[in-house]
Every structure is written in structure tokens, then in C-alpha cells.
């Protein structure tokens, strides 16, 4: 069944969109990731204009994170104070990102920027994750003693001013690093159409030293507001949010996520992570090839000033 998307102005098979939403939903349920970093490149591949894909993904992430955050609030695993601090940075970052996006769109370099960001981040994160899970598997095979817990070292972060108490996380640190983390993730959210959890979660654990149990809830809390803000900015400056596309992806995604969660429970954590790493590297490789190999058609057509 073909459906005409009013903002993207293309006609796409509705079941393809539901299926894509479902597939990415299964993966995000299995691995506990947002899935924006997979969905946005997939949307490029089926012919949705990149500007529409990025803006619509932001809208979809708001919705898919919403039910997630409710569950975390119920379990009291959200550090609201930290969330607000991250959010301040995130909002500024998203505003910056949307501006950069608009300027590059005029210059015809949006595709390049988005793809470069994807190659860079997916490559680094996929690579790290792959190595780490290989190590973990090797360790569990050799069945040595449990690794000693690493106490966070005192670093330059502790020397920064403007300290604040974060009771839920049990931290007393400067607000500057979380604001910067938030800012960075906000820029990514606006440019790449992702929530940014894949950057924020490691940053919260390794850089800020937050306890693992509050990390996911807190990042979801920040992601909802930042992506909602990015959606509004894209809607008002670029007119590129397609609500029909968002709803179709979402319905598929929610159902897929429920299935994925059930599959995820049955699989070992290490093998899950290595699968996710391989997938991330595959998407990265595909995008990198697009940039490195000579394209079949060197010319492209964009609309002057307005859409596209």
C-alpha cells in the first residue's frame, strides 16, 4: 500500500515504513539503544530527503523515549538534577546544531556533514564496543577472578569550579562537564537525528562517574527534551518534520521494541554487545564506502533556497 508523505513529498510503501520501524524497534529492544542512528541512514536509503529524515527522527525519538522514561521515573532511577544540568547544555547545543544544519543546507553540504558524523561516531563507538566485548568474552572463558572495581581517579574534572551536589548519583562535581556533555549531544541530536544516548551513556559512566543504574533513565530524560526542542526548531526553521512518517515508524517501532526486549532477555550480554558492535560497524562501513568510492552519478540536483 503506497502512502504519500505530505512533507517529504514522496510516495512510499506504508508496510515498508512499518517494517523498518519494527526492525529497528526489535534491535533497540534487544540492545537497549534508541535506534535513531540506524533509522536515519535507513531512511536515506529508501529515498527520504536527508533533511526530512533527520527532523522526523527527532520527533520519533521523543515519542519512543517517552514511555521509557516513565518506567524509569517509577523505579526512581532518574537523577533529575543531573538531567536538568545536561538539558541546559543540550538545548544550547540543539539550537547551534539546527543553525549549522540550515547553513550547510544552503551550501549543499548537509549530506556530507551528516554522513561524516555518522562514519566518525559509528566507527569509533562500534570499534570500541567490539574490542570491549571481545575482551569480556575472553575473560569469561578464562574464568578468572572478577575484575576489581575501578575506583574513579581524581582528575582535572574535580578541579573545576561551580560544584554542585547530585544526591541521586551520589556525586559532588562541577556542572561544567555535564553541561558540555549535554551541549555536544544536543548538537548531534540536531545534525544526525539521533537521541545521542550512545555518546551520553558512556560519557556519564566514564567521564562523570555516575552510577550505572541511573544512567539510562537520566539520559532518556535529557533526550526527550532535547529532541523535542530539536523537532520544534526543525519544524519552524526548515519545515521538515513529517508527522505521517513519524507515526508510521513509531507504531512499527513500539511493537518491534516489545519483541526485541523478549529476545534480548534470552541472549547473553556479551554476544548481544558484539552483535550490536558488528551492526554499528556495518552501517558505518556502508556510509564510508559511499563517501570513498566514486559515485556513479557525480551530479545532484537540489532546490534553490527552499526544500531539499
Amino acid at each position, binding site marked *: *500500500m*503506497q*502512502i*504519500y508523505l*505530505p*512533507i517529504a*513529498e*514522496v*510516495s512510499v510503501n506504508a508496510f515498508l515504513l512499518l517494517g523498518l520501524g519494527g526492525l529497528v524497534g526489535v534491535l533497540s529492544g534487544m540492545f537497549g539503544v534508541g535506534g535513531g542512528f540506524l533509522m536515519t541512514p535507513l531512511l536515506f536509503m529508501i529515498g527520504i530527503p536527508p533533511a526530512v529524515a533527520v527532523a522526523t527522527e527527532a*520527533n*520519533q525519538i*521523543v*515519542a*519512543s523515549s*517517552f*514511555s521509557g522514561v516513565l518506567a524509569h521515573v517509577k523505579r526512581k532511577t532518574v537523577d533529575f538534577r543531573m538531567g536538568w544540568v545536561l538539558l541546559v547544555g543540550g538545548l544550547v547545543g540543539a539550537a547551534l546544531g539546527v543553525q549549522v544544519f540550515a547553513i550547510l543546507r544552503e551550501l*549543499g*553540504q548537509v*549530506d*556530507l556533514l551528516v554522513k*561524516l558524523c555518522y562514519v566518525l561516531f559509528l566507527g569509533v563507538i562500534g570499534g570500541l564496543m567490539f574490542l570491549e566485548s571481545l575482551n569480556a568474552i575472553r575473560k569469561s572463558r578464562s574464568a578468572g577472578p572478577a575484575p576489581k572495581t575501578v575506583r574513579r581517579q581524581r582528575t582535572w574534572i574535580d578541579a573545576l569550579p561551580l560544584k554542585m551536589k547530585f544526591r541521586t548519583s551520589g556525586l559532588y562535581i562541577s556542572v561544567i562537564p555535564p553541561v558540555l556533555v549535554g551541549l555536544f549531544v544536543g548538537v548531534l541530536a540536531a545534525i544526525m537525528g539521533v537521541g545521542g544516548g550512545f555518546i551520553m551513556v558512556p560519557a556519564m559512566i566514564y567521564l562523570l562517574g555516575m552510577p550505572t543504574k541511573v544512567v539510562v533513565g537520566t539520559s532518556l530524560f535529557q533526550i526527550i527534551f532535547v529532541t*523535542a526542542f530539536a*523537532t*520544534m526548531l*526543525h*519544524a*519552524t526553521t526548515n*519545515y521538515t*518534520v513529517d*508527522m*505521517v512518517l*513519524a*507515526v508510521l515508524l*513509531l*507504531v512499527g*517501532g*513500539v*511493537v518491534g521494541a*516489545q519483541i526485541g526486549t523478549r529476545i534480548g532477555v534470552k541472549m547473553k550480554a556479551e554476544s548481544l554487545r558484539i552483535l550490536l558492535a558488528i551492526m554499528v560497524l556495518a552501517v558505518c562501513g556502508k556510509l564510508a564506502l559511499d*563517501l*570513498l*568510492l*566514486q*559515485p556513479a*552519478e*557525480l*551530479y*545532484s*540536483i*537540489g*532546490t*534553490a*533556497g527552499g526544500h531539499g
Partner: protein
Amino acid sequence: MIRLLVVLLIAALPLRAEEIVADMSQDRISISTNFDGSEILIFGAVKRDRPEPEGQQLAIIVTVTGPREEVVVRRKDRRLGIWVNTDSVEVSGVPSFYAVASSVPLADALSPEEDALWGITTPRAVTATAPEGTPAIDADFLSALIRVNTDAGIYGSAEAAVQVRDSTLFSAEIALPADLTEGNYETSIFLTRDGTIVDSYGTSIYVQKVGMERWIYALAHEQPFLYGLLSLFIAIAAGWGASAIFRVFKA
């Protein structure tokens, strides 16, 4: 301008040996939610008040031109090992859609002089509205523009797509793709004898989004803030609703 003059000139000729009488299956296309392209049938007859001239080849040419717009054609080049858009050229007055169908190969149906005057073959049609004195577009970029749009199914020429019966009745089917730009699609029918245009007939098809498509598009452009809020609200409601339904099934 030249086109208009020529049309007036031909219309003013008192005695025309042959005249086109034509109509279309529809003069209005509505883009609704399930829009998946459309086929229009253009049909008609050649009206004569005297016997058909002997030994002159008759041809019918049908063109459909979408609303003209300004586009940017970009060329990729290798920079630091990756392929990047480097040069670009802005072209104005480019048809968002162009289809030309003819009863015999276009080269036989139309002389180059007539083509230059009327802008019928795709390269001519694309640059037809360029004002006098504007520098010509780089040939590489122009041919790339046509090639990319042809590959995308936006431009096309179909030879022998116009059926002519007994040198009198003719019909042509033109397929319009799903990703149409809204606006007026000018449809022209030309009757040629030995490559010279004898008569022409012009009409237009109006393409418009309707219903929900119209409403969403208008809201997004006229009330973007409200539209953004509504998108967020609908998405959250849909996501929450879908997971609620799933929970009910599970329980």
C-alpha cells in the same frame, strides 16, 4: 514571449488546412494519501476542411510541462579522498516535470528550427524560459540536469507513444510520477507536417494536494509552531497508545 507571439500568429492565420481538436481524461489531479502517480489520456482528432495534403509526413507531438522552479545542480569532486559537492550552478525556470511523446521519432517529427522556436525536445524545453542575454549554462551541468531527472523518471521522451489512426484520430498516455510538485502542468499538442508545426493546442492540468495531505502541508508551512507541537503530541500519544495496547494483549 516568443512562444506567445507564435501562438497568436498561428491563431490569427485565417485559413488553416488542419486543426487539432483535443481533450484529456482529466484536467485536475488530486494528491491524496494513497496517491501513487497518475496516468492521463490525451486524445483528439485532426480537423480538415479540405483533403489531406499528399506526401507530407504527419506527426503529433504531446508535451506536458510541470511548474518551473529554480534548482541548484551540484558536482562532486574528490577532496582529501572523499567525494564532496564542489561546484554548483543555479538554474532558474527548470520544469519540475517534462514529458514529450510523439507519433514518430522526434528528429523526424520536428525540424531543429521549429524546436529552437518552440522548445520541445527536453534540452530545449529545460532552457526555454531563460531570459535573452543570460549566459548559457555550462553544457556539462545542463546535460547532467537532464540526465539525473531522466533517470529519476521526471523527464522523459517517448517516441511512438502517440497513436495515430487514419491520419486523423490520435491518443497518448502520459504517466505522471508520485512525487509531483503542486501547480499547473501545461499540456501542449503539436501537429507537424514534414517537421513544420501546422497547428498547436494548449491546455493545462492542475495538480493539488487534497484532504489530509493539503491540511498537513498547509499547517506545517503556515503555523509551523503549532504544527511542531501537534507532531510531538501525536507522536507521544501514538507511541504511548501502541505500548498500552501491547500491554493489554500481554495481560
